[in-house]
């Protein structure tokens, strides 16, 4: 079964702080995604990647950077965190194939920006 591991699980920072959320998947999936989950908004796609070195912009990319260093590792960077980025962040991976386009999610990273 696909495994997606996120770290840290909880993070508190202050406005203007620098945060990196990490995600590692161990199922050799090409596609990886970062979502944020907020009450009233559901899950919204921030960035995604087709493979190492590739980055694509999602629906809510402002204030976020991402890097895909290897097939396994996908990072979300908040260089100047703001309170509006307080959220629950999920990483997911997928084979990216139509018939098996299932997403495998991590357990989430809760970020609080004071």
């Amino acid at each position: 079964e696909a495994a997606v591991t996120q770290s840290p699980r909880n993070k508190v920072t202050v406005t203007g702080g620098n945060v990196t959320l990490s995600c590692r998947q161990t199922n050799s999936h090409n596609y990886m995604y970062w979502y944020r989950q907020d009450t009233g908004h559901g899950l919204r796609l921030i960035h995604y990647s087709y493979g190492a070195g590739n980055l694509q912009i999602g629906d809510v990319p402002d204030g976020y950077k991402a890097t895909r260093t290897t097939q396994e590792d996908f990072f979300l960077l908040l260089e100047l965190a703001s309170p509006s980025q307080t959220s629950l962040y999920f990483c997911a991976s997928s084979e990216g194939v139509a018939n098996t386009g299932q997403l495998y999610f991590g357990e989430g990273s809760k970020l609080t920006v004071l």
Partner: protein
Amino acid sequence: TQTVSQSDAHVTVFEGDSVELRCNYSYGGSIYLSWYIQHHGRGLQFLLKYYSGNPVVQGVNGFEAEFSKSDSSFHLRKASVHWSDSAVYFCAASINYAQGLTFGLGTRVSVFP
């Protein structure tokens, strides 16, 4: 672009009851639809999907969903719920599966004994 709407924010049922969660999408072409479940404090887990073929699809733990192109719907059903089915259920859609999924706002299901 595609949109997904889930008309019920919260559904309350008793153990053993049937439940139907509604999902409607807006997009005129071929679309990939799926349902996910999120238990409290956990990540989302895949339940089932539809891309083509038989419009009734079976998923894990007795869930099934039916696709209707005429109604632009993909409703999720379960004949007899268990307390462990208490969770938030998300309908999701994609016209290009590689570009991720667009999620509805979710329906919280509370199952009482």
